[in-house]
């Protein structure tokens, strides 16, 4: 799926070769990422797609490290957490050849653990968040930035997709949901700070 988002980086030497698609009801993103990263040092791109095969978000991993992630306007670690919260219809994986590794976002295992903490906090927004884990100091340093005003989320109508818990099939709703996630993640980090 061609990314309509800001990435992946459009470099002439970058080669993206599709390897598989899988029904997200039969597997899940963290599992697929761990299997790829646990057994191979090749670079893989995994894209989360909705029922209309529209891109919801994407992540690149190599040898246990997360190189980049993107969901709507979110990038970096926040995008990893937002990706873990999505419910895509399909996962699409590709092998990527790109000499530019850039600065990784962190180890996959650690980001998955941090993501689980964030999602747990999102699930109970009315409670005080727990004290920051002593071994996760960099969580507080994550910068948050959103170009989408919060009312976009409030104005988003409840769709059949949203009610069914499946990924929405229209193009704008994932962006609104991404913005909502960003807002919630930002609130959590602000509370922690």
């Amino acid at each position, binding site marked *: 799926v061609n990314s309509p988002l800001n990435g992946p980086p459009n470099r002439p030497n970058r080669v993206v070769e*599709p*390897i*598989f*698609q*899988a*029904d997200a009801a*039969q*597997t899940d993103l963290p*599992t*697929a990422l*761990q*299997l*790829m*990263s*646990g*057994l*191979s*040092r*090749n*670079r893989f791109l995994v894209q989360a797609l909705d029922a209309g095969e529209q891109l919801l978000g994407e992540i690149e991993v*190599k*040898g*246990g*490290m997360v190189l980049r992630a993107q969901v709507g306007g979110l990038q970096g670690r926040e995008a990893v957490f937002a990706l873990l919260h999505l419910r895509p219809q399909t996962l699409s994986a590709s*092998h990527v*050849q790109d000499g530019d*590794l850039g600065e*990784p976002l962190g*180890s*996959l*295992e650690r980001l998955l653990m941090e993501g689980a903490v964030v999602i747990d906090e999102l699930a109970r927004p009315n409670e005080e968040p727990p004290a920051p884990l002593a071994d996760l100091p960099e969580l507080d340093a994550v910068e948050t930035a959103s170009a989408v005003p919060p009312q976009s989320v409030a104005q988003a109508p409840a769709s059949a997709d949203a009610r069914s818990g499946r990924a929405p099939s229209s193009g704008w709703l994932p962006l609104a949901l991404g913005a909502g996630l960003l807002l919630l993640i930002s609130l959590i980090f602000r509370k922690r700070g």
Partner: protein
Amino acid sequence: MLLSDQEKQDIRRTWRLVEQAALMETATELFYQNLFETHPEYRSQFPEDMSGQVRKLAKTLDFAVKTLNWDSGDWKEGEMDAQSDLFLILTAMGRRHKKVYTVGNDQYGPVGASLLHALDLGLGQVFTPEVKAAWTKLYMLIAGTMQLGAIMLTPEDRKQGVRQ
């Protein structure tokens, strides 16, 4: 589910012992013996003469262990072609096991238990709880990847209109 550097070292060290003691085929024989004792219904899915099967399993395990010759600090290196990539090889094996040998997801558990049993018998005291945990994790990665292979659609499948 990811293997730590220590777990990879434990796997490599104990597999070397299996190799040095020329236990590789014995261990795989023990594996099949245990599997067919605990699950005789699986016997019909295998050929009468098991010698080729034993060698194949030993070779697969040997390849898996030797491919995992990298630690977390080596993540930048090691790009390899699809024919040598353990993840891609295992997904292809998983597809084949599902389509040709009709292996179901429920069979991966007993197979893993028999593999650990064979390693336990072969390695004896060296098969400590930590080593067992490392091998269990490796088997979970292998089985999980083969199961993923069984459900995935390749670009060729999609061209041919195969649906999940």
